[in-house]
């Protein structure tokens, strides 16, 4: 399976290597660098590269390439999914998955990698098990460790490893028992030039933060579970119960985790909460163009649209932009040609507008295409699909937990073609 792993930063330094079988020389990464050069953009590096003796499967996360070396047939998604799980674990342990964080905690990283794979086959990837084996670094613990000489490696077998619920550790205790659920929905949409919706879809997740003592058995029910068309579950959820009663019944992992992710059935019409009026034009044979964009709210069920940000990848011929924003601030990066307009809150009384001139490279032909506008926004306390949590019941434990549900709607891949 997975033979070796190399972590490479953006400037091409291999800053960590780990081998689960015989050592593979770093030079194998040259094939990767070659492909990277060919791809120009990091996004376009092929995830699977075939070399004379090995196959390289890589992912790109948080400015780090995770390049794994494979010697024989293995489902590529198996490796990709595992690498993402590694990155998630780093994120979980160190708060960020960055080169500095990994370098600072190189020993823990190594111990983690050692536990996660045995002979290239995943062994323990569940964060609760890993945390029992290797305690995440905290300032307090490192101080204590340095004084007492105790270690951050657990010396007991993680019970989860053996139980039927490997995601939960035993003997969890909290003084405040809390269970929070965030229903986060994202609107993916493509809006065409005339403002009509080409494609729109709602994707949602329920992220949970559960801090409950003992072995609570939760069941979460919805007012309108039929909305959920396609659902993927955390392994803790009893699939059968969902099938028969549309109730999420589970013994939760401890801490933060993603309970489900779902797609709202495509029959439902998606309410698009904002509209964009735009006028972008480049004049033939002149080195300027006009840019005029207004964003307004629509169908937002009485909630305010917040944190609106618009990013536009302008054509290469654009040299600079002289704009005035009636609200918020804008930046234009002349190197990457990305225009970012941080709008903030939209108030229907005064619609935010960004208007001005575009300077083009003189002599260059007029850009063929108008750039598309990518919009980000947030609406608090609203799940745009109308999904509502009905109730949360807890069995198996005596105490009364504090329960909370939060709804939020965001723009996912929300694109307006112009």
């Amino acid at each position, binding site marked *: 399976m997975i033979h070796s792993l190399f972590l490479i930063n953006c400037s091409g*330094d291999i*800053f*960590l290597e780990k081998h689960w*079988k015989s050592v593979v020389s770093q030079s194998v990464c040259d094939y990767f660098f070659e492909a990277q050069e060919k791809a120009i953009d990091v*996004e376009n590096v*092929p*995830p*699977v590269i*075939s070399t004379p003796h090995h*196959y390289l499967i890589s*992912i790109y996360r948080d400015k780090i390439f995770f390049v794994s070396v494979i010697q024989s*047939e293995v*489902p590529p*998604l198996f490796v*990709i*999914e595992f690498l993402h799980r590694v990155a998630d674990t780093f994120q979980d342990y160190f708060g960020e998955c960055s080169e500095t964080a990994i370098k600072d905690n*190189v*020993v823990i990283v*190594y*111990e983690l990698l050692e536990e996660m794979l*045995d*002979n290239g*086959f995943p*062994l323990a990837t569940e964060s609760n098990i890993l945390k029992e084996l290797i305690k995440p670094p905290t300032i307090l613990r490192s101080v204590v460790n340095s004084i007492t*000489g105790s*270690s*951050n*490696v657990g010396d007991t*077998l993680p019970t989860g490893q*053996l139980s*039927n*619920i*490997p*995601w939960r550790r035993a003997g969890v205790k909290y003084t405040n028992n809390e269970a929070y659920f965030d229903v986060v929905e994202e609107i993916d949409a*493509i809006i065409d030039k005339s403002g009509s919706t080409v494609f729109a*879809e709602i*994707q949602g997740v329920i992220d949970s933060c559960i801090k409950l003592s003992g072995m609570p058995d939760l069941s979460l029910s919805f007012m309108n579970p039929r909305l959920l068309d*396609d659902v*993927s*579950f*955390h*392994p*803790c*959820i*009893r*699939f*059968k*119960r969902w*099938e*028969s*009663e549309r109730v999420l*019944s*589970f*013994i939760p992992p401890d801490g933060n985790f*993603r309970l489900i992710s779902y797609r709202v059935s495509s029959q439902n019409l998606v309410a698009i909460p904002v509209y964009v009026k735009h006028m972008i034009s480049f004049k033939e044979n002149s080195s300027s163009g006009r840019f005029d964009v207004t964003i307004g709210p629509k169908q937002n069920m009485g909630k305010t649209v917040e944190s609106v940000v618009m990013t536009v*990848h302008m054509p290469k011929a654009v040299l600079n932009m002289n704009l005035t924003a009636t609200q918020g601030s804008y930046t234009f990066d002349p190197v990457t040609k990305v225009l970012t307009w941080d709008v903030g809150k939209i108030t229907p009384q005064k619609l935010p507008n960004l208007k001005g001139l575009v300077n083009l490279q003189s002599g260059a032909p007029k850009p*063929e295409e108008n750039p*598309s506008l*990518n919009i980000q926004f947030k609406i608090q306390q609203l799940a745009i699909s109308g999904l509502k949590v009905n109730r949360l019941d807890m069995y198996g434990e005596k105490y009364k937990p504090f329960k909370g549900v939060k709804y939020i709607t965001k723009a996912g891949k929300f694109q307006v*073609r112009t």
Partner: protein
Amino acid sequence: MAQDKCHLITQVGQPQVSHCATPLPVQESLALGKHLGKALPAVSPSPAAGRVHDDLKEMLDSNKDSLKLEAMKRIVAMIARGKNASDLFPAVVKNVACKNIEVKKLVYVYLVRYAEEQQDLALLSISTFQRGLKDPNQLIRASALRVLSSIRVPIIVPIMMLAIKEAASDMSPYVRKTAAHAIPKLYSLDSDQKDQLIEVIEKLLADKTTLVAGSVVMAFEEVCPERIDLIHKNYRKLCNLLIDVEEWGQVVIINMLTRYARTQFLSPNQNESLLEESAEKAFYGSEEEDTKEPKAEAASLAKRKPYVMDPDHRLLLRNTKPLLQSRNAAVVMAVAQLYFHLAPKAEVGVIAKALVRLLRSHRSVQYVVLQNVATMSIKRRGMFEPYLKSFYIRSTDPTQIKILKLEVLTNLANETNISTILREFQTYIRSMDKDFVAATIQAIGRCATNIGKVRDTCLNGLVQLLSNRDELVVAESVVVIKKLLQMQPAQHSEIIKHMAKLTDNIQVPMARASILWLIGEYCEHVPKIAPDVLRKMAKSFTNEEDIVKLQVINLAAKLYLTNSKQSKLLTQYVLNLAKYDQNYDIRDRARFIRQLIVPTEKSGALNKYAKKLFLAQKPAPILESSFKDRDHFQLGSLSHLLNAKAVGYQELPDWPDEAPDPSVRNVEVRGAPQGAGCMGGQGGSVSEESGSSSSSSSSSGSEEEEEEEEEGSGEQSEDKEEEEKRPKRKDKEGSRKAAMGSAGRYPLGKRGSSVNPFSLNPAVTPPPPQPIPSSSIISTSLVTDLEGLTLTDTSLTPAVSVPHALPGMSRDPCPSWGLQVGGSASHTPAPRPRQLLSPAFGAVRTYELLHRMAGEGLSVEYCFSRRPFPGDPHMVAVHIQISNNTDAEVKSLRVSEPKLLSGMRIQEFPEIGTRLAPGDTANVVMGIDFCDSTQAANFQLCTHTRHFYVSIQPPVGELMAPVFMSENEFKKEQGESLCTVVDSCHPCCSQ
């Protein structure tokens, strides 16, 4: 200060530092600095390294764990950066027995990394591990085995072998899992051990814990993937455990089972395969195909042996399906490929939704999924059509994703959606990403060739692109137009003329070559222009690319043949230029063509045929997807992605023509598999409902086997239920155990509606087959609706005399019910009392005859006891419960004035003479002959003061009586009764 020294050291310690890519961190450079004062070793291969490590050695030799730990941490940091720390081996290996667990772990890390290089020294550590293998703590046993097997030192192979064998029968499943992991390690070290290892694998495959299952299948795949025979006995167990195995194990098991199923079962689509060939030619859309198939299938069924899916095949499909909802993309993909390769065509569709979901994931996941979707969408277009819009492209997608999406969109294009797709393509053409634009133009070309209706539209669109500013776009369009024009050149001389004009401007060689070829090929359509073009090209010949030169020669030759008057001299000129070209291909071509077209004395017989050779009708090129036929690789595999066989790829075998003996999967071992019906919750833990259902169905499953093998059941379900302590579940558990105790008596459940009230006792020797005329089995008026006997998943399924009763069942082992209509019960011999047990009254569904409000305090409920009325076998017994909720007595309750349809009869219950006191209830039984109809029986219910009009309408299911019947009998009856019976039976079985 540190900076200075560091600089100094980099010079001194050149050999050590030069090969490390990253600069030394401060900590280490300080360590270097500390030793700078010491004398340089005279002749050392890496002097600096030696000195650095002296410091570490000292720390390792100290008595303090904290110093050791510090040293080990620094060493591990060096290893992580890919630096050589091998010279510390003796110092490190001494600490292998260190008490501090973290030091120990880090020593293990070091050992595994360097043991291969320092084999002799590594042997020093072996005894520690051997001791560890005997430790009472399972964690220590496991980790000792793990490290021991990771040390790649050939000399310890026998020790490893012994350790693995021992660990394989360890009490702790965790140690057994580690043993499974160790197998491939040993195998890669010494492949001669294969036979012995296979024995261990065989043993571990029989392990019943989910913890081991994934790892041992992994070992199986690495060591002996060809020994498919080892799987037989474990097949059912693996299928049933699958849902509870950890994610990574699931992927491996599913992939292996896909291969297994391909060797053991028959193709579920074999009846369609022949039709497909004709259908595919005749029909465009796959939907049309689909609608066509059922009919055709029915016709072919009559002719050939009907396909019956092996219950084990069904089991696999059923147990993998819930995993489509896994959060792990690899699991979803594994199930998707399993369905693609194994499921009947009609069922493959379920995977589309899950695959589309994965498109929201990370870029690399998207990339792999899209590759697979592209392959699937060629074969099964209908499946992804509803999700067409999910493949629309965003300007922010990376190019490689864009191109894959484009591929899928093109594959999905058909006559109905082509206009939408083309509209999308129009947007894409204006993209800034030129590679993507080129791919879009290709895609338009493919749509145009595949869908005749839009060919002209596409062509017009492409011609418009010829005036695009971007040369690459124009060039790509030219190439695609060339291909399209070949289909119907006569109508498009205008376009050819237009393209001829382009030769002045366009510089891209491929495009120029394409234009020249077009003009040459269709020079008769553009007789005036062609020689002119040749003249221009002759002028610029020497500056052209090779590919263009070849086409110039080609054009010249063709013109010479068709229009030698105008072009003779030009041709001569071109050929002369080519004769002295630097490229030998061009020289050769010129020589060859000259001989062929210019008649000379020497030229042979071919000369006459020159025209035929050059101006032959050429077939239009077929624009095909590059993903066509990729599905001969197992989907989701590395080989499929690369479109080349990867090392260690196991070929996906073709379906066998004759199914191998299915009985090999029967297990004699006591209670090894958990029967066929188990389907747990998605995770390891099982909910109350699902737990009870899975345990109950698994109990029924194991009983099936039991019956077959005439052995007591050994229910082996890992008691997941123990986590849950609710009384209700205990009840179930209790009843289940009771059921087990009474050798297969089916417990009555608590859940009214879904529980079947009849408890058949399979352990009793089955009654001899009863001759039941098929006409009496199911009256045709009832066959359309059998909901009354629908067995939901959670119901406790009654016995089946043979396991896997029905072909085509999809979830629970199907009960072989013989259905008997109450009205015609007399046709059969009197039912045995043992077969028809009286139902518990509460478990049967009761219906309301008279509501408390309508009845002014009198409420009447009734239910069907599902037995013939004792007085008259034609009648159905109806239990009536009358309760008096008034505060006065009710007297003389009776039935009067029945209004019945012709043929229906009613046996009234005797008048209740006694008074019914307030709060009292009375139970009576009446018989009704419904004449096999579901018409209501209307009558009046009278009390001493009032008359109530009431009616009893029987649900279909209540008009039947259960009959015991063996599977063979059932099949026979099934075969004899009308097709519709079978059809309507299936939905109820496959709930």
